[in-house]
């Protein structure tokens, strides 16, 4: 790789299958949920990689594999060039300091019976980096940093609103000065007016500490706003990845095009003009994914080859070299995939 120093995390061909057990006396594995099936990506230093996809496409599973929370079935995860795939607990420990997570649910991810100071101080205790007064001071500095009142050190999570709780989660993730923070739907549970507060905070922290983010969200506008590069996943595989603007403005994979056209934009004129691509049906089951291209049963451009041959993730003609698409028949510029846009009534 030409700029290896620039790469913080490299994931190669990562596979995670969950076994499905039969109901008999001897619990045999009868099938497997192919949650992540051969995904490669890179997160660059100080940058944000946005991960987009619908429920069940494997984005959270992928995040948990990278964080080392669950073992991977096959493939490799490199952190700063070192292989951290399925490391034993003790060997993984120094890397856990470098990779932290922020979770979606600010209610479920904080222990309601512990005080905020103790929650944010946990990482110091676990890694024995600070104790006593020193820990308290560090926690209060963190609270200030994320926009919480340090005097609220002794309060319980229930005394905070949703947005403030998410700040607590951010402070906890920040405690050990990690290099990578995996944000799994960090603003999905928040109201619109609060969401922007947390997004701004994340942007500030990135600028100040040179953090890298792996940012998972289903809100496409949010992902576009925060991300430098975007990866679109469908049913455990990468459909398309590349620089944010390139993927958003010139989507080559029919799935990304449909996903982007389906996202409601808060702009009536744009909504009326947009050529909306309405996909038929639902996402198929990852237990028994479709053959060939996994998107073919819902794809408006599908042909015979899509049912048999799996497309390779590669740069298509006319795209920048960092823009990769896994499709036999990529969308051409100006091509109308949609049925005609809905006409404005009256």
């Amino acid at each position: 790789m030409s700029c290896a120093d620039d790469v913080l995390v490299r994931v190669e061909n990562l596979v995670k299958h969950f076994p499905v057990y039969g109901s008999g006396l001897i619990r045999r594995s009868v099938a497997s949920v192919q949650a992540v099936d051969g995904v490669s990506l890179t997160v660059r230093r100080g940058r944000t990689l946005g991960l987009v996809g619908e429920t069940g496409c494997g984005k959270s599973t992928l995040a948990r594999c990278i964080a080392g929370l669950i073992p991977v079935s096959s493939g490799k995860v490199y952190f700063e060039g070192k292989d951290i795939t399925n490391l034993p607990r003790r060997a993984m420990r120094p890397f856990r300091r470098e990779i932290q997570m922020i979770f979606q649910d600010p209610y479920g991810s904080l222990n309601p019976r512990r005080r905020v100071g103790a929650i944010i101080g946990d990482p110091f205790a676990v890694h024995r980096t600070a104790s006593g007064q020193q820990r308290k001071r560090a926690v209060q500095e963190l609270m200030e940093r994320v926009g919480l009142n340090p005097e609220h050190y002794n309060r319980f999570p229930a005394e905070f609103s949703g947005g403030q709780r998410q700040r607590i989660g951010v402070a906890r993730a920040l405690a050990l000065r990690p290099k990578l923070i995996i944000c799994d739907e960090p603003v999905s549970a928040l109201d619109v007016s609060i969401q922007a507060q947390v997004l701004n905070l994340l942007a500030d922290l990135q600028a100040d500490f040179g953090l890298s983010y792996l940012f998972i969200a289903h809100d496409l506008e949010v992902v576009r706003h925060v991300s430098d590069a975007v990866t679109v996943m469908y049913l455990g595989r990468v459909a398309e990845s590349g620089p944010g603007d390139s993927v958003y403005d010139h989507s080559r994979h029919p799935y990304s095009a449909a996903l982007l056209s389906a996202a409601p934009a808060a702009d009536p004129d744009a909504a009326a003009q947009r050529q909306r691509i309405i996909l038929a049906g639902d996402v198929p089951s990852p237990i028994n994914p479709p053959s060939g291209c996994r998107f073919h049963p819902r794809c408006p451009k599908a042909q015979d080859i899509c049912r048999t041959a799996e497309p390779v993730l590669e740069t298509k003609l006319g795209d920048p070299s960092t823009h990769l698409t896994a499709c036999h028949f990529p969308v051409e510029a100006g091509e109308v995939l949609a049925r005609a846009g809905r006409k404005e009534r009256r």
Partner: protein
Amino acid sequence: MSLLEVTDLQVSFPTADGVVQAVRGVSFSVERGRTLGIVGESGSGKTVLTQSLLGLTPGGQISGTAMFDGVNLVGLDQKSLRRIRGKGISVIFQDPLTSLHPLYKVGWQICEMIRAHDTSISKGQATERAVDLLGRVGIPNPRERVNDYPHQFSGGMRQRVMIAMAISLSPKLIIADEPTTALDATVQAQILDLLLRLQQESDTALLMITHDLGVVADIADNVMVMYAGRAAEKATKRDTFYQPHHPYTKGLLESIPRSSAATDRLKPVTGQPPSLIRLPPGCAFHPRCAYVMDRCLSAEPELHPVGDAGEHRSACWLPAAAIGLGDAAEDLRRQAVEQGRSGKAAKVAEAIAAAPESEGSVIA
């Protein structure tokens, strides 16, 4: 005459901690074949507002009037309400999994609804209707699927079943309470498309409750923005998005990331929504408002006409001409604020500007 005309509706819930004033004097109307979008954040009273119309808020004290097709829904006895539910007004709830009974087949659940309102229909006829309805909402193989249980359907398909139930008695008004919030983007597009199509086929009025401005931009004709149990602004869809008057509407629009706005920084609304038990005096939005003036602290503004079109109404003390997101409107607002702000309001404004939420991390 409007299909539904709600005037000065108030709903409050007495609790041990005090009275929760969920809805505080809201008026609106819905016309046949049109869609009214009600937008607001959690706790703004939008769901209570619509549920109180159908008597679904036990323990709530309701006042005001809600004329639906010549009948006042407020204070109506259960028996008469029952005749209106489903047939006159039906509801699509947010979470299709908890709204369907897990132990009954979906066909049975649709038939139950049909037969509860029309006892002359035989079981066989009702089943035929259910099959037909499932087909209309786009469920493949409806004849087989009527015998499936809710868990055998995906989220989007369950929401289609809910819609089939909602249209089963050809209601005049459908209340859709966050119908797509639990769904993915591509499925959300399918459901919104379906709702619009059904509405056009049967001239049904739609009351769309959502927190998602994108959904409103897509589907509504008129919009009511709610804050702390009151209507902050009422306007046509275009006016709401392009000529907002109320600072809360403006704040909402500016706080969502949009690809069209080429700024790196979002402009969030500072602070948190107020408690509905202890509302701030004056305008409920003043502790978060960048344009807070003296009168905002003591007097709550009523909805009044703003802009040049008569339909556009806003509950804010800023000059009526200060509409839109442009510089001219901003100048008008600044002027008004300069004249109308002294002592106490200036302190509130300082506190808002200094709040950590406004920048996320300004504390040095």
